[in-house]
């Protein structure tokens, strides 16, 4: 049989939603970030399993849920806002896109502010014990990710206001949003580890 190349029909050109190379790259970036948090939480559980003096792990008893629980809700709400923005641009609603992204970014900043306030009130420090080291390092890693996510959301919001996206060209939105949803989801793992597991024992 001779060489033969089938004549294709019309094909999409450029960055198209979940077929863009950047979207695939973000998936694997998220795998490596998820692994990073996996190793962070492994470190927590590994050190938690070592023998400790009473009341040093967690230091001062299980951490309070008073701020952390509502803050978790704020972060989940921000994911919903970003999802609403994504839903909007797929239907060519640029206002909904910009609003959703902006609202998500503001909620992310609110989360950061409350987190800093909670840091302020902790009875231990980074250097007082291995528990303090873990608490500030792991939550600090997560806050750094939230900060990066907030910057991404503001950049996407600005680009949306410049009218760069429409119902075909929104790969940037989905790539940035994917990262934000990851940052929110990984908080649930951090929250469960630090705030819930000490209560289970």
């Amino acid at each position, binding site marked *: 049989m001779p060489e033969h190349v089938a004549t294709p029909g019309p*094909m999409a050109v*450029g960055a198209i939603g979940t077929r863009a190379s950047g979207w695939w790259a973000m998936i694997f970036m998220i795998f*490596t970030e998820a692994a*990073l948090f996996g190793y962070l939480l492994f470190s927590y559980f590994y050190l938690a399993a070592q023998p400790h003096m009473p009341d040093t792990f967690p230091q001062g008893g299980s951490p309070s849920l008073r701020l952390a629980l509502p803050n978790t809700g704020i972060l989940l709400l921000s994911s919903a806002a970003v999802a609403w923005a994504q839903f909007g641009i797929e239907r060519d609603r640029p206002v909904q896109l910009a609003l959703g992204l902006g609202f998500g970014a503001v909620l992310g900043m609110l989360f950061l502010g409350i987190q800093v306030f909670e840091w302020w009130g902790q009875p231990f420090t980074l250097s007082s014990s291995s*528990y303090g080291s873990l608490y500030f390092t792991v939550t600090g890693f997560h806050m750094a990710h939230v900060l990066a996510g907030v910057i991404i959301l503001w950049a996407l919001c600005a680009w949306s206001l410049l009218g760069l996206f429409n119902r075909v060209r929104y790969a940037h939105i989905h790539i940035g949003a994917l990262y934000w949803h990851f940052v929110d989801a990984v908080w649930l793992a951090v929250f469960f580890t630090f705030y819930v597991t000490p209560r289970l024992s």
Partner: protein
Amino acid sequence: MSVSDYERVPEIGSAVLRPGLTDRLERMWETRPGIRGWFATVDHKRIGIRYIVTAFAFLIAGGLESLIFRLQLAGPNLRLLTPEQYDQLFTMHGMTMIFLYAGPVLTGFSNYLWPLLLGARDMALPRINALSYWIYVCAGIFLYAAFAAGFGPNDGWFNYVPYAARAYNGGPNVDFYALGMILLGISTTVGAVNFVVTFLRLRAPGMSIDRVPILAWGTLTASAANIFAIPAVSLAFFLLWLDRNAGTHFFDATTGGEALLWQHLFWMFGHPWVYAIVLPAMGMVSDGLPVFCRRPLVGYSMVALATVATMVLGFGVWVHHMFATGLPSVSLSFFSAASIIIAVPSAVGVFAWIATIWYGRPVFTTAFLFFASFIVLFTVGGVSGYMTGSLPVDWQLTDTYFIVAHIHYVLIGINVFPVAGAAYFWFPKITGRMLDERLGRWNFWTMFVGFNVGFFPMHLSGLLGMPRRVYTYADGMGWNGLNLITTLGSYVFAVGVLLLIINIVSSYRRGRPAGDNPWDSPTLEWATTSPPPPYNFAVIPTVASRHPLWEGRLGEPDTQQRSSLKAGFLLDHGRETLGTTALEAEPDLILKMPADSYTPVILAMSLTILFTGLVLHIGWLAVAGALAAAADTIAWTWPERSLGQTAGAADA
């Protein structure tokens, strides 16, 4: 907004029937001349060559370090080096070879070869590719600048705590190592993501996953592993840096930390990494060796599956580096069993290569000699690894020269020898000239004899109880003769490596012209000119088998569909390549590829400034680096119409 702005019926055609097509593609894809092009290029071929040359520079540096301390170890009680100098030299040697040579050299070959093997015009993420290289070279300079200032890493490449804790190692040496490794980890990670996305999205139409060259399987597997493994070592080094600089207690057992946490995190990364720096090299052998046996690889599917299986098992063996640390026996038994089982997929490869030679008609070129000798050396290194997978043997031999012999048989045997073979095999493609075969024979035999004379006796000195990581040893232990032979052998081996470099330099200028396909090889890279044009392929090839250039010669039926190399997707509306589906490689969409850009080199430099600020405790410098990195990232990701990222037609 019309839909036609975002869709096009791609033209199918033949390059020979389109006068001017190759000139236009050349203008679209070529790197600008001069210093600007040098910093801005995103051409995977240029980046690949840079990776290889830089990795060879580090190979020479690491080799010279070992030649110095082999003199110190040539006889008992020598005083050529102080213990402190010895510590820095053997640490720099290990760190350089494992992190700055062995991984990057394979990345270099894969960077150069992948788009050519897969029938694409570049990697999926060309700017990420450039970023990966620039960060790698910055991290190398970062670590070597510390060494030049007398602050090189000095606790071994494994950097165990508590030796590496502030209390026992007060200088900045370990801080440089920690931050340098985190920087290098960024390079490896983004490079790995690029390989995975390229494999999944940029294979030529028709190149379903059972038609991919084994080198691509090897690098894909290594990259997938790196994506999951690199965070462990980056985190370990970051926690150590915090322990040393911010007063945390991760590894300090007196305040609730645990020194073994370091070993767990380090080896959770370290063992997968060992496979990451050999599997692509095994892939090079799996693709190169059959060419010189004049037949396809025996057991393609088994070798591809064994590659993946080795890596999966490779995540479950890290504790065999920790058998002597007093872990519970249940854990030891599990990891001992896993370490022994991993011999099975390794053996699949060995038998496939032997069978390929056995059933083939070998042509004894220098490349063949390197590839075939790799099988021998891998078997020796594999057997000593299998032995130490067993607990009682490991307890006897751990921390002796037996382990040093093992690591050198696996790393030199499975990395350096295949790389030398790959140099002979692909040098004609990269430069358009052949390496000298006569000098090649001298090169091979000097390396092979020198290596075995140098490293085999280490098994014996280890069995006789000589501990590793010591700067000297006492007379009368029965180790003197063996160490002298090891030193002599290492110098012979170094001469062999020197012959390789001489051959490369002299053949680059005066070698015999190679032509497109001097070895009569079957894969797509040999369908291009030597060296390939900037756009790789004038039309995107369509692939119908595992051996597009051997079709019609393997006894397949006449009705079999043939690959199309002359006619195919033209894709000449700017820099474009074809995106295909992940498994079947059906045409999916037309990808717009970025032009040359300064953003990668600026981001690499910004991150280096950030890390320099951190290691020197200069706050404003670190902040400046971080802000520059953030600004550069925003500029980089700014949606571009020419890349088909914004509303409006992307086509020029």
